[in-house]
């Protein structure tokens, strides 16, 4: 009951935050030089004042800014994301068709990095000071420090170009028109490189944090008590140490989950993955205000949502934590 109350109140607060963010974004993106009409006029290669005026009308830029804001806020309240005049399509359609690809990529990377990171972190802590610890820590350091785009490109060069094991771009073999199991396998093969690249960075992060946290918990009094009681080492690690040590990782994982929509722009660009991060980046360079605002809104909504979920997970992981909305 307390949980339900907690969630409801947080959702209400979240909605208020979202509206404030939407209004802020509206003004923020207009701060950049240029607008969607001038971008399109520039791309056209030839223009005259009539053409420019036509474009401004199409994009609704001829109305005063306050009026544009009012229209936008009204639409947001009804979850109407508007129309992209540049692409001649509703923004919601554009977002919905790209969202699954991103969720697949970031979801896979998230799960992989979390599981691998936690396991490696605990392993390193249990074998602290030994060779396996050194190797794991080194591995974590390398992938944490190396720029993501370099790892991505090197992955393409090694696995796609030199070895030919994996495709370097896209999420399906375009033109092959596969269905059923063949399609799933095709997507899985295409997913390996981008998901692994994204996962490696976060894996390194989780491993380091988990290791540090595990070491700290392992020295606590109640662990000594458990050992004194004669419980097996493995049982102690799994049941007592890990559960307590995992809290910092939950915090971090909650933050990463919030980036599940917008956080993979670089990977999506390098691997030509048709996701929403790229949509956002393209909309930025094209100054397509409607699409940008739509994507920002989705992104903010997910961050708010995952913040709430993280708080609930805390409570489950450690019943001592009180839930105050």
């Amino acid at each position, binding site marked *: 009951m307390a949980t339900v109350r907690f969630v409801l109140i947080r959702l209400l607060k979240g909605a208020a935050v979202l509206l404030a963010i939407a209004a802020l974004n509206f003004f923020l993106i207009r701060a*950049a*030089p*240029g*607008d969607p009409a*001038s*971008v*399109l*006029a*520039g*791309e*056209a*290669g*030839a*223009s*005259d*004042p*009539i*053409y*420019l005026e*036509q474009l401004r009308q*199409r994009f609704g830029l001829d109305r005063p800014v306050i009026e544009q804001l009012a229209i936008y806020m009204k639409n947001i309240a009804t979850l109407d994301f508007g129309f992209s*005049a*540049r*692409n*001649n*399509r509703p923004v919601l359609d*554009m977002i919905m*068709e*790209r969202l699954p*690809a991103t969720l697949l990529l970031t979801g896979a990377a998230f799960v992989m990095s979390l599981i691998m990171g936690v396991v490696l972190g605990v392993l390193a802590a249990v074998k602290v000071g030994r060779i396996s610890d050194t190797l794991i820590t080194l591995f974590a350091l390398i992938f944490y420090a190396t720029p993501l785009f370099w790892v991505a*490109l090197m992955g*393409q*060069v090694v696995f*796609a*170009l030199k070895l*030919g094991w994996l*495709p*370097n*771009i*896209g*999420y399906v073999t*375009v*033109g092959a028109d596969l269905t059923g199991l063949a399609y799933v396998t095709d997507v899985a093969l295409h997913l390996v490189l981008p998901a692994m690249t994204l996962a490696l960075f976060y894996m390194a992060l989780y491993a380091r944090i988990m290791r540090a946290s595990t070491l700290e918990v392992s020295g606590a009094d109640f662990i000594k008590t458990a050992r004194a009681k004669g419980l097996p080492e493995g049982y102690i690690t799994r049941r007592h140490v890990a559960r307590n040590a995992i809290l910092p990782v939950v915090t971090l994982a909650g933050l990463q989950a919030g980036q599940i929509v917008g956080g993979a722009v670089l990977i999506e*660009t*390098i*691997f*030509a*993955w*048709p*996701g929403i991060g*790229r*949509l956002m980046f*393209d909309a930025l*360079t*094209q*100054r397509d205000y409607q699409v940008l605002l739509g994507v920002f809104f989705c992104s903010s909504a997910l961050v708010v949502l995952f913040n709430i979920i993280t708080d609930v997970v805390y409570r489950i992981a450690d019943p001592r934590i009180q839930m105050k909305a």
Partner: protein
Amino acid sequence: MFRSTLKSLACGVLLPLTICTAAQAQQPSSGGTLQLVVTPEPPGIVTGLVTNTPSQMVGGNIFESLLRFDQSLKPMPALAESWVIDAQETTYTFTLRQGVKWHDGKDFSADDVVFSLNTFLPQVNPRWRNIMKAHVQSIEKTSANTIVIKLQHIFDPLLLMFENGSMPMVPKHIYDGTDFAKNPMNNTPVGTGPMKFKEWVAGSHIELVRNPDYYIKGLPRLDRAIFRFIPDAASRAIAFETGQVDVMTGGSLESADVQRLSKTKGVCVSTAGWELFAPLSYFQLNVRSGPLANKTFRKGLMYALDRELIRDVVWSGFGEIADGPISSRTRFHPEKAEPSYDYNPEQARKLIQQSGYKGETLNYLVAPYGEIWSRTAEIAKQLFSDVGVNINLITTDAAGWNQRARAGEYDITNNWPYQYGDPALGVSRMWVSSSINVGSPFSNTGGYSNPEVDKLFERGATASAAERPVIFKQIHNMLADELPALWSVDIQFPTLYRCKVHDFVTTASGANDGLLNAWIEK
């Protein structure tokens, strides 16, 4: 045997397509899927509504105009079967092909042409709108398949307007009475071209399929064509190397990758297919005030530019040195400009000092369209510093550049507008006074105003074919002397493709018509 080896070797180096096809004189085979890359993803593919390069490369295979052009800019029949120009050169009669169908099965007729030329294109295409106003008197259909265009006076470049990239014939039954830009059919376009639209997966690719009812028997030869969008330059190169794509259209590869990939076995290069566009690059100068308003100073800057260096280092050897505003591929290009400039830093320093330059810093707005322009800016900054001129590089993204360029908020920037085959169509708009402050970065944003040049361009547009070479030679030399811009590299954007792909670049529009004749060797 030796000759064919030699010619196959030639295919791996930079030579136009014509030599390669002569070497492999085979029978074209039918069928297959061609995978191409265009970059960036186009905002739309109805070529009348959207005229940027990737839109033309894709949409140009769906839509057609009345004519197409061979690589010496001679007009060839497309939707117009034949045409007659009267003795006064003011009446053009086009006989349209019969039996042509739109992709949705309806018949193509003179009504569609009249609608496109009189209603659709003047509404959406600024260039045609201005030409209609200045030169055209009337456009009418005189029979089910005859169109007559009457001009107000001689306008020699008229035929060159009818290319599919900016003047497509669109279906009246789909567009008449609608808001053209918002018409939902824009997302599933219907044209008369050799390829039909199949699907557009946003962020991934556009697929076109063969038009089985195309009016030329035996064409197109391909079953399908897939245009992939790959935003990162390095990934594009890797995709080509791993065989995922077969054609890299001009401008989709950084020039360093072109060098490297063109030497790979089985890869052919073509620098042809840009004759109709002939992008000539220059350093556009804001001559309204400051040191740049002084012609002696501008001449000094011109001598300070080592254009061979820029061509060899930045463009990897592709392109020619430009000596004036008219490209060597555009009509009426004079053999050599007078005056011409070589790289002479001593002379540069002398002239700059003579002009009374006091060390003011000039703002150089870097064009945000790839490594090529960043490097050009860096090299130019070094060359200008060498002769004592202070440059401040300003970097921004495409939207920012558009904004600043069209408002004239720069001292120096780079530009390379299309010339469209005739100086009256593509060159004049950059240098005439009426083209100042029109809201486009591809106009006279530098504020250059010379009434003599204005008059010459005006005469040049409406003079007879015999007089025009003289007039344009005068303009070319005058602008080479006045230097409203520093003439740099006459660009060649090479198209890279696997040698088993033939006849992709066969017209002056290159990739825009690419799928008409292309075939894949089995």
